[in-house]
C-alpha cells in the first residue's frame, strides 16, 4: 500500500525525469525501486535517486554480506568499539587504546593505480583519525597478475608508488604488508590498506550526530566532480563497459590530509566538536546520512553552501562527489569561532552547510528548493538484504581432489632456489624501501620481519601488527583457508613475542550473486569466526569488496586479515632472522608433509591444487602461547613462522638474515629424527600450520625444551647456527647444502630483476 508522501521534494529544472531506464542506470533493481517509492510515498526526485543508488550500493549497504558478517565474534573484555564505527578500538595498558581498520581500493586502482592506491591510503587514515586516534602505522596487502605481463608491472609499480607517496607525505610509517601475484588478479588487482592509530581511551569520539540545532560543517578540500558514483562503480564487475562509466578519477592531496589530521585531532582533544566523520565512498551523502542514523536524528543540508571546485555543480553532484580530504563535523553553534580559528591555523576552511533536526528526515535544499526529503533511519535500515545461494564450484572441488600434481621441474635442492626466486616468496624490499618505515621514530621492527612492532613513547608496552591471507588455500578450501589466514596472522604476531588482540578483515571476492563465489565468502567467513573464537581475538571491523571480476573471471577469494597484538614490554620483541653463530635451532610444531595447496606444487610442479592441511586451531593457540611466554622470559634469539614454501624457505630466510646485515649466517641441521615417516619433499616444502623455527643461546636449551613441554607444543632440536654461510640440512639419507649468500642474491634480486624496466610499461605521473 502506498501511503501519502512523507514530505515533498522536487527535481530541479533540467534534471532528467526518473524513468525505469534511469533507475537501471543507477544500479537499482525493480524490487529496490518499488521499495523506494513505497518508503517515500511518491516518485523519488532525481537527486533522491542518486542518494538511494549510492547508499543502497553494495559498497555502502553490505546488502549481500550483512547476515554473514553478523556471525563474527565482536566482543571481548578489551573491546572498546566493535564494528559500526569508522574504526574498531581495543584497550591497551596505561590508558591507551588502539584504533585500526582496513579498507579496499581495488576498482579505482585498476583504473589509475597511482591515484587509486594513494586515495585508498588517504581514506583509511581518515577512518582512524576521525576516532580521535593519531595514525602510527600503515600496512597494505596487494595482489596483481603475474609480473611477466607489462600491464601487471605497470599496476604494481604505480600502486606501490601511490601507497608510498601518500603515507610518506603524511608522515605515517608503513610497518608491513603483503604482495602476491597470481593469474586470477590480472585485470583486477587488489589494494587493501590498513591503518593503526593510538589514542587515550578517554579521548575516543564516535561519529553520531547529536543535539538538535547543532551545526554541520564541511572541513577540508573543496568538492569537485570526482568519483561521482564511485560507490556504485565499486559494486559492479570491471568490463569494457566500465571504461565508459568510469567516474572521474579522484586525485589525492596528502598535504591537505596532513592538515586535516592535525586539525581534526586538535578539535577532538580540545572538546570543541560533537562528532566527526570522513567523507569516503558516496561522499557527503553517506557521511551525513550515516551520522544522522547513528544519532537517531534528522539533518538538513543546503548544498549551495558547500564550497565547490567548479562552478554550477548540481545538488546531485555535490551529494555524490567523492572528492578526497574532506570531513563532516557536528558542533554546537557557539563553538564555531573557536573551530574556525583552529582550522584557519591549519590553512583549512570550515563551512557551515546545515544542521541537526528533530524530525528524523534526511533533507537537502539547494537554492531554496527541497531536493531530497527521505526518512533518514529508513534510508539506512530499509535497504534490502540478500542471502544468495551458495554452492561449491566444480573446479575447486576437482582441484582439491587431485593427489598427483605431476613431476617437479627441478630437484629438491633446486626447488628452494626456484621458490626463493618467485615474487610471492622473494624479498619485498623493492616495495618497502619505497615506504618510509621509520618516521615517527618509533619503529622497533620494520618491514622484513614476521610482524611490524612499534613502541609508544612514554609507555612500556609495544604494539605488533600484521596483514595476511593465503588466497590459494582459500580458493581450494574456503573454510580452512579462512582459518589459515587468521592463524597465520596470529602466528606472525606471536613470533615477535606479541599476544594477538583482535582483527579487522577485508573480504575481497567476485560477484556474490554467483553461488560458487558466495560459497567462498560464507565459508571463509565461517573459518575466520571459528579461528577468532578459539584465539579470543574479536573482529572489530572490516570491509567487504565484491564484484572483483574482469572479463577473465573472478579473482581468487581473498579474505585479508589485519591483526594487532600486544607486547607487555616492548624490549622483549623478537626478530625473525638468526642472530648469532652458535645459537641453537629448534623446530616447534609437527609436519604432516601434506603438499596440497603448497607453493611447491604450484611453482615447482606447476599445479595449483590438492587438499591443503587442515588447520589445527588448538595447536595454533598453544604455539602462540609458547612463543609469547618464551619471548617474555627472554629465551629467544629469533623466531620465524612457517608459511608459504614450508620449512626449507623458513630456514633459508632465517639464515640469510635481515635486509641490511653485512652477510648471511648459515646453519648445520639434522632433521632425520624430526618427521621420520614423512617423505623428504613434504618435510622441506609442506605447509602445515602451527610451526615456527626458533633459536636460543646454548645456555637456554633446557629451559626452552621445558617451556615447550609445559605448553604442550612439539619441539625438535635441529642443530645450530653457523657463521659460515652454508645451510646444511640432513634429512635421513639426503644431505642438502646451499650457499646462503647465493640464496640471498636470488631472494633479493627476484623482484627488482623483473621490475627493471617499468618505465617501458608506462611512465605514470611525475
Amino acid at each position, binding site marked *: 500500500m502506498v501511503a501519502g508522501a512523507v514530505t515533498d521534494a522536487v527535481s530541479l529544472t533540467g534534471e532528467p525525469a526518473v524513468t525505469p531506464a534511469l533507475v537501471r542506470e543507477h544500479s537499482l533493481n525493480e524490487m529496490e525501486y518499488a521499495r523506494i517509492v513505497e518508503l517515500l510515498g511518491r516518485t523519488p526526485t532525481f537527486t533522491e535517486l542518486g542518494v538511494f543508488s549510492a547508499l543502497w550500493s553494495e559498497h555502502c549497504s553490505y546488502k549481500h554480506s550483512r547476515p554473514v558478517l553478523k556471525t563474527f565474534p565482536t566482543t571481548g573484555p578489551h573491546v572498546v568499539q566493535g564494528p559500526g564505527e569508522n574504526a574498531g578500538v581495543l584497550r591497551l595498558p596505561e590508558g591507551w587504546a588502539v584504533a585500526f581498520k582496513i579498507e579496499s581500493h581495488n576498482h579505482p586502482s585498476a583504473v589509475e593505480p597511482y591515484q587509486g592506491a594513494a586515495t585508498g591510503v588517504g581514506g583509511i587514515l581518515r577512518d582512524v583519525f576521525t576516532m580521535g586516534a593519531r595514525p602510527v602505522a600503515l600496512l597494505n596487502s596487494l595482489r596483481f597478475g603475474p609480473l611477466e605481463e607489462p600491464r601487471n608491472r605497470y599496476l604494481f609499480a604505480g600502486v606501490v608508488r601511490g601507497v608510498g607517496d601518500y603515507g610518506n607525505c603524511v608522515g605515517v610509517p608503513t610497518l608491513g604488508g603483503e604482495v602476491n601475484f597470481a593469474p586470477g588478479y590480472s585485470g583486477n588487482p587488489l589494494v587493501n590498506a590498513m591503518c593503526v592509530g593510538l589514542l587515550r581511551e578517554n579521548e575516543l569520539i564516535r561519529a553520531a550526530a547529536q543535539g538538535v540545532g547543532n551545526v554541520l560543517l564541511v572541513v577540508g578540500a573543496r568538492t*569537485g566532480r570526482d568519483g561521482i558514483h564511485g560507490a556504485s562503480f565499486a559494486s559492479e564487475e570491471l568490463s569494457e563497459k566500465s571504461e565508459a562509466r568510469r567516474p572521474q*578519477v579522484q*586525485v589525492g592531496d596528502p598535504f591537505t590530509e596532513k592538515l586535516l589530521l592535525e586539525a581534526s585531532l586538535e578539535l577532538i582533544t580540545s572538546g570543541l566538536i560533537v562528532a566527526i566523520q570522513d567523507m569516503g565512498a558516496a561522499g557527503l551523502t553517506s557521511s551525513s546520512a550515516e551520522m544522522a542514523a547513528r544519532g537517531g536524528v534528522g539533518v538538513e543540508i543546503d548544498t549551495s553552501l558547500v564550497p565547490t571546485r567548479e562552478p554550477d555543480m548540481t545538488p546531485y553532484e555535490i551529494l555524490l562527489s567523492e572528492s578526497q580530504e574532506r570531513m563532516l563535523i557536528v558542533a554546537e553553534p557557539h563553538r564555531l569561532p573557536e573551530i574556525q580559528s583552529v582550522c584557519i591555523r591549519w590553512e583549512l576552511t570550515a563551512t557551515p552547510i546545515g544542521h541537526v533536526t528533530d524530525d528524523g528526515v534526511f533533507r537537502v535544499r539547494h537554492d531554496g528548493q527541497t531536493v531530497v526529503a527521505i526518512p533518514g533511519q529508513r534510508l539506512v535500515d530499509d535497504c534490502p538484504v540478500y542471502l544468495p545461494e551458495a554452492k561449491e564450484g566444480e573446479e575447486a572441488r576437482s582441484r582439491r581432489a587431485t593427489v598427483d600434481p605431476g613431476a617437479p621441474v627441478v630437484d629438491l635442492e633446486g626447488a628452494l632456489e626456484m621458490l626463493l626466486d618467485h615474487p610471492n616468496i622473494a624479498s619485498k624490499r623493492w616495495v618497502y624501501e619505497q615506504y618510509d618505515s621509520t618516521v615517527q621514530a618509533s619503529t622497533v621492527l620494520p618491514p622484513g620481519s614476521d610482524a611490524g612492532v612499534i613502541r609508544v613513547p612514554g609507555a612500556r608496552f609495544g604494539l605488533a601488527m600484521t596483514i595476511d591471507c593465503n588466497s590459494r588455500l582459500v580458493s581450494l578450501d574456503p573454510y580452512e583457508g579462512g582459518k589459515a589466514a587468521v592463524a597465520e596472522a596470529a602466528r606472525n604476531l606471536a613470533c615477535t613475542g606479541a599476544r594477538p588482540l583482535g582483527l579487522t578483515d577485508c573480504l575481497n571476492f567476485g560477484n556474490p550473486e554467483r553461488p560458487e563465489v558466495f560459497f567462498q565468502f560464507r565459508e571463509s567467513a565461517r573459518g575466520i569466526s571459528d579461528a577468532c573464537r578459539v584465539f579470543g581475538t574479536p573482529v572489530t571491523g572490516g570491509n567487504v569488496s565484491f564484484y572483483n571480476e574482469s572479463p577473465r573471471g573472478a579473482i581468487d577469494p581473498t579474505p585479508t586479515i589485519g591483526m594487532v597484538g600486544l607486547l607487555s614490554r616492548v624490549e622483549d620483541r623478537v626478530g625473525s632472522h638468526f642472530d648469532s653463530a652458535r645459537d641453537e635451532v629448534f623446530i616447534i610444531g609437527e609436519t604432516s608433509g601434506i603438499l596440497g595447496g603448497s607453493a611447491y606444487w604450484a611453482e615447482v610442479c606447476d599445479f595449483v591444487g590438492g587438499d591443503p592441511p587442515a588447520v589445527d586451531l588448538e595447536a595454533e593457540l598453544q604455539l602462540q602461547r609458547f612463543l609469547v611466554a618464551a619471548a617474555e622470559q627472554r629465551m629467544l634469539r629469533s623466531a620465524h613462522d612457517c608459511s608459504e614454501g614450508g620449512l626449507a624457505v623458513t630456514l633459508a630466510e632465517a639464515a640469510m638474515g635481515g635486509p641490511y646485515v653485512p652477510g648471511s649466517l648459515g646453519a648445520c641441521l639434522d632433521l632425520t629424527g624430526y618427521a621420520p615417516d614423512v617423505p623428504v619433499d613434504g618435510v622441506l616444502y609442506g605447509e602445515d600450520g602451527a610451526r615456527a623455527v626458533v633459536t636460543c643461546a646454548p645456555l637456554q636449551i633446557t629451559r626452552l625444551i621445558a617451556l615447550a613441554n609445559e605448553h604442550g607444543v612439539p619441539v625438535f632440536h635441529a642443530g645450530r647456527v653457523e657463521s659460515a654461510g652454508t645451510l646444511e640440512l640432513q634429512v635421513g639419507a639426503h644431505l642438502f647444502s646451499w650457499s646462503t649468500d647465493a640464496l640471498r642474491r636470488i631472494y633479493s634480486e627476484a623482484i627488482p630483476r623483473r621490475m627493471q624496466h617499468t618505465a617501458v610499461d608506462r611512465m605514470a605521473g611525475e
Partner: protein
Amino acid sequence: MTFRVHVRVMPREGLLDPQGQAVEHALSALGFEEAGAVRIGRAIELDVAAASRDEAETRARQMCDKLLANPVTEDYLLEVEED
C-alpha cells in the same frame, strides 16, 4: 631531418591539481594576487628524427599516447619545431 618536439602534459580539466593549488596559494602570499587558475604538469622536450614535420608529429603523438601521457588523468599538447 631532426625536429625538436615540445610536449606539455597537463592534468585533465576538472581533476584536482594539488600542486597547482599550492603554488597559487604561495604566489598570492608572495603578493602576486593577479595570478590565478594555476595548473602544473610536465614539460617534455625531445628530438625526433623524421623525413617530414608531419611524420615527426605523428610519431610524437604515438609516443604520447603510448608512454608520455597518462590518458586517464592527463591531456597533452604538441609543438614541433624544425631544428
